[in-house]
């Protein structure tokens, strides 16, 4: 019996069958997206060298959950900043200039900085978690090196029986090149 190497399973997963279309024009890619959505396709991948609002509108995706990471990180940072300064003051109380042990104004600076630090780092975690790790099938979906340069691309996962139908849809919308993966 052949054992599955878990690292290979993670980093070199088997390819997903489907059709890859390469587009030189934005409006052709938008047309293809509209037709695919009308045809009931939901799990296709759109490649783009730059973020375009036209693509976002055509795909009609929900707002990214990254904002919750930022919010929770920021609130947590502020709370940690307050806890850190107040706890340290009361743990080793020294009266300075007759001021209260926990004097808030100088702690606001620490609370602000911790809000920004934790907010920013949890935003990074949010992007990494959502865009890099939670993106299922990322490594298995067909890709072309031109997609970071000057071409748009659409990959439609499909069984071999439906591939010719998807191929003609992509060609009809104006794909420059269509290939099976």
């Amino acid at each position, binding site marked *: 019996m052949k054992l599955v190497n878990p690292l290979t399973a993670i980093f070199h997963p088997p390819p997903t069958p489907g059709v890859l279309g390469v587009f030189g024009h*934005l*409006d052709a890619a938008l047309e293809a997206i509209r037709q695919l959505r009308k045809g009931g396709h939901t799990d296709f991948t759109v*490649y783009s060298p730059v973020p375009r609002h036209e693509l976002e509108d055509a795909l009609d995706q929900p707002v*990214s959950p990254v904002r919750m990471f930022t919010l929770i990180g920021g609130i947590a940072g502020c709370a940690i900043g307050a806890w850190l300064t107040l706890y340290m003051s009361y743990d080793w109380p020294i009266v300075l200039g007759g001021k209260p042990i926990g004097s808030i104004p100088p702690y606001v600076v620490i609370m602000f900085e911790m809000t920004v630090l934790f907010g920013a780092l949890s935003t990074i975690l949010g992007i990494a978690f959502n*865009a890099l790790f939670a993106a299922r099938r990322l490594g298995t979906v067909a890709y072309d090196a031109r*997609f*970071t340069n000057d071409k748009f691309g659409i990959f439609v996962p499909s069984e071999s029986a439906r591939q010719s139908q998807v191929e003609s849809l992509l060609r009809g919308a104006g794909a420059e090149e269509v290939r099976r993966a």
Partner: protein
Amino acid sequence: MLIWDEFAIGTYFTVSTVFLIMGLIPDIAAVRDLATGWRKKLYAITAVGWRGTNEQWRHYTRGYLYLAALATPLVLSVHSVVSWDFAMALVPGWHATLFAPYFVAGAIYSGVAMVITLLVPIRKLFHLEEIITIHHFENLAKLCLLTGLIVSMSYCTENFTAWFGGNPHERAAFWYRAFGPFWWASWTMNICNGLLPWLLWSKKVRTSVVALFVVSIFVNVGMWFERFVIIVVSLAGEPFERFANATYNPTWADWGIMAGSFGWFFMWFLLFVKNFPAVSISEVKEVLPAPRRGKAVAA
């Protein structure tokens, strides 16, 4: 107060670094797909699997927006907090409520001047004339002029309040700055930061790369002397007994730290521009019109 510094500068350094790296990811992926040899391996690792899918862009653009929103107030906060380190002390010449806006404007002023100083040779060496245009330089020059005027205004205000406040130690400190043994440092600062940027009122200067380069060098020198005047001259001798055995002479260690800091900066800067995209590729593409059928692709 130095605890403030630790948090402010530590946060500023960390957030600026991750912001820079995050902005580079789509660009590194773009050069990964064109590179060959060992660089391709380097970019394949540093692009962390970027392919420009709709899901990636969806999360990335949102996150990048929030990073920018967090980093902007951070610029104001870090320079304010650093200035409060001075302002909280009782040393004459430091103890002023003016310090936060004065330092924020000074930071943007010297920052923009340093950007011009670095941009002029980089643009020439990497042939970026069509990407970084005279229009960009003119806008930088305008920002430089605006912040330079705020800094000049701050110089006037701090001298005025020292005189008008009537505190003899404060008055003595500013007299000592202008006419004491370090008069040359103060007047270098005033001329380079206050007077020379008035050249930028002229459109001819603002649109001449060579003239801008020269002005920006003077601003860099002036801002370096501003630090020198605020820190060294305020502390030279006994701050409350002006003209009493006051002096400061840099030792070989002082010069060494300065030379080393320049070397440390240029090592990282040159390694970066040599190996990574110096101008954001995806952002330049973003402002180009998208290719559409029946229309020629704009160059």
